[in-house]
């Protein structure tokens, strides 16, 4: 066999999350449980299409003008403007003064990628600071564009709480103008968010040091069931930095509208107040042209179908009201599962404390299980989660939560007993 350049290509390990899904799919045990990927499941463990989405789909198909034509390079205007309203709030000063440049993106990942590509082109020397730990894909997205990533302390494993001091110190020592990637709410994987007071401190420090804040908002409304509550950090940031620096916002509708596979998201740049209207217009035009160029070089224009669904929901009072209900349905079911799991573990007397499961928000719990325990859960109990101990609570339901609790109990005891030997 002749050697070609192809032979030098190295084999990469499978993506951790999609790899779990593959093993899960291949597992033939009947009672397997998938707590890996962050996707909502109903009480039967089935994917759930939100009632608001179903209504929006019907409306779209009933529209005589429905077709598959190309969207603009920057996407559907009804989507990007509706999305800005949702995330910055209807009374946002930034919206009123038209300080926002928005574009549709291939869900949250696509938005982060546009941010990365934009930063690497114009500010390649800036360091990107990611929380430790963070969503597995963050590092890859920024590094793929040649940006240097760093981490800031976030999770204190001892106290299972926020390491605010460490976080502040990072902000302090980071080279001026660094980029801080902040999870807007429902931090992935820890499920732990800063309090309002802590956000004040963090954002003031960021402003003071002239850093750039990049908010990753993948779970708005999903964490608390309330869009406004979950946008608190972003709106505070927009306010605090309004005379200081731009803010980048990556917005995903994967989880809160259940649009996972349809890839609907937006990327926004909020500009600080400018001296003159002309200045603002010039900057916005330049930014928008550059974002268009990036998008044109990778996808030409974003996918239409999911965008139309989300835009339909965002722009209809009735469907929006339904959507708010849907989010409460999802967030309250997840909360119920958190409580049930904690209670079962307490009833079983499983070694350790389990209150953090209830205190964490969003889709995930950072259970504190070790990677050995996770491996044993998979092997012996056909329960799948990320090796860091992150469990997607959405994968729990009334039918499997007891078995999951018993299995966790078994693996925790297995390793605690072993270590005592």
């Amino acid at each position, binding site marked *: 066999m002749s050697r070609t*350049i192809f032979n030098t290509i190295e084999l990469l390990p499978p993506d951790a999350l999609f790899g779990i899904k593959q093993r899960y799919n291949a597992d033939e045990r009947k009672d397997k449980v998938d707590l890996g990927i962050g996707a909502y499941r109903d009480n039967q463990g089935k994917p759930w299409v939100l009632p608001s989405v179903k209504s929006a789909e019907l409306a779209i198909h009933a529209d005589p003008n429905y077709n598959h034509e190309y969207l603009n390079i920057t996407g559907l205007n009804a989507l990007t403007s509706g999305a800005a309203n949702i995330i910055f709030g209807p009374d946002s000063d930034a919206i009123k003064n038209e300080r926002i440049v928005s574009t549709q993106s291939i869900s949250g990942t696509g938005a982060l990628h546009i941010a990365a590509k934009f930063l690497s082109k114009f500010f390649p020397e800036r360091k990107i600071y990611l929380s430790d730990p963070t969503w597995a894909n963050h590092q890859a997205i920024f590094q793929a564009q040649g940006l240097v990533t760093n981490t800031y302390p976030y999770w204190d494993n001892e106290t299972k709480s926020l390491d605010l*001091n460490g976080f502040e110190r990072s902000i302090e020592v980071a080279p001026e103008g660094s980029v801080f990637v902040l999870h807007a709410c429902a931090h992935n994987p820890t499920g732990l968010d800063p309090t309002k007071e802590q956000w004040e401190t963090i954002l003031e420090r960021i402003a003071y040091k002239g850093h750039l804040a990049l908010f990753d908002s993948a779970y708005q409304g999903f964490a608390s069931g309330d869009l406004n509550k979950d946008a608190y950090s972003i709106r505070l940031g927009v306010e605090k930095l309004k005379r200081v620096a731009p803010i980048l916002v990556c917005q995903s509708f994967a989880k809160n509208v259940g649009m996972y596979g349809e890839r609907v998201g937006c990327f926004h740049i909020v500009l600080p107040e400018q001296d003159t209207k002309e200045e603002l217009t010039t900057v916005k035009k330049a930014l928008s042209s550059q974002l268009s160029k990036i998008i044109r070089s990778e996808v030409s224009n974003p996918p239409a179908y999911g965008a139309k669904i989300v835009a339909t929901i965002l722009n209809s009072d009735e469907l929006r009201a339904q959507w708010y209900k849907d989010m409460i349905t999802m967030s309250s079911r997840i909360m119920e599962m958190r409580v049930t799991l904690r209670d079962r573990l307490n009833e079983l007397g499983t070694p350790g404390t389990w209150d953090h499961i209830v205190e964490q928000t969003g889709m995930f719990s950072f259970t504190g299980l070790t990677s050995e325990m996770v491996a044993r859960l998979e092997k012996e109990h056909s329960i799948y989660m990320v090796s860091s101990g992150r469990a997607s609570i959405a994968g729990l339901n009334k039918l499997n939560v007891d078995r999951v609790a018993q299995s966790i109990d078994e693996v925790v005891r297995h390793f605690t007993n072993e270590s005592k030997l």
Partner: protein
Amino acid sequence: MLLIRHRSLAETAKIIHQRSFTSLVEKVPLAPADKILGLTAFYNRDPNPKKINLTVGVYQDAWGKVTTFPSVAKSQKLIDNDLLLNKNLSYLPITGCKDFETNVMNFLFKESMHHPELIEQDRISFIQTLSGTGAVAIAASFLSTFITNEISVPNYSWANHTNIFTKNGFPSVDYYPYYDRKTGQIDFQNWINHLKNLPFLGKPRGILLHASCHNPTGLDPTRQQWEKIIDTIYELKMIPVIDMAYQGLETGNLIEDAHLLRLCLNTDKYPHWNNGIFLCQSFAKNMGLYGERVGSLSIVLPEADSQLKERVNSQLKRIVRGIYSSPPGYGSRIANVLLSTPNLKKQWFKDVKSMVERLQSVRLAMFERLNWPDLINKESNHGMFYFTRFSEGQVNELRTKYGIYLTLDGRLSLSGVNNYNVDYLCEALQNVSKLARA
């Protein structure tokens, strides 16, 4: 506790505004507007009641409407009615939907190219992509990371090709002569000579080829010319990157139109492509799924080697994961249902045929009025576009005086022409053609 000097926020703001933000913004220059999609914005604002938009390559029916093909509409209905198909909006795998992969690979490699053994031997690395653009972008990213950062692109070409390659790891692109603007012919000899004279810089070079219906000229090499071109490319050990955005729009027959791929895969002539063949394929035009972003990238590997395929796939996944994680579902579900339902697929073949028949009748109607022979030269002039060879001045004249919009390079999209506007259009073309091509 941390000791931090406290400055008032307003004070901070001022300092930072001065030193960081202004520079930050001033550094971002205005990128030129996209040549094609920007014109549509002008068109929309034009008050001329007779205006005609002939810029975008989207098929319109004889009434100027963008309609959904019957085959696609039926597939859509099946999906919408069958809860099992559309009640799951979950993430697709990184490389796309498995069924889509099977159906598209069968359609491309078994039916269109008659090379089922490539599938049987597991020789193809395949991913679902964001339409043709996404396929070229991932191919560019993969090539520039592992194989080569040299690519030759035809002059002219789809305006976005250069943008895609230079934004995805290629420092620059080389342009090979393709079209002789003076004669309106393929610049065949110069094309071959150009390739032969390219310096060898230690790496194999990629070459982008339009599989058919060349954009923007609408002019393809003849079959004989293709043979000589592929002979040359093979001899020079170049890597074909084949952009197939218009399969079916050349002859009206989807299968027939894959002739360039069948030629490249003729193992009697070309036993071993050292660095594979890259096929970037789009369902935007031939299924009318434009905005749904449905397409694929297939890398025909140099040899059957399952480990090699695994390695290549793992790298493709890494690239995708860093750009968009996984592709959009809806459009691929439509394509998938269509390709796997025999009567819908039959209908699709008919739909494509009637689209092409209409485009050919437009060519004929224009020929009858203008008597420009290349309008009806079936051997070489194909697809949705007719290249007027008008100068920018002439294109501007058409726009300002007649409200007729072509792209600045003089490309005219035949799909916007119909019985209602053909007379007005041809009269304008006739008038403008008399102006000097300054």
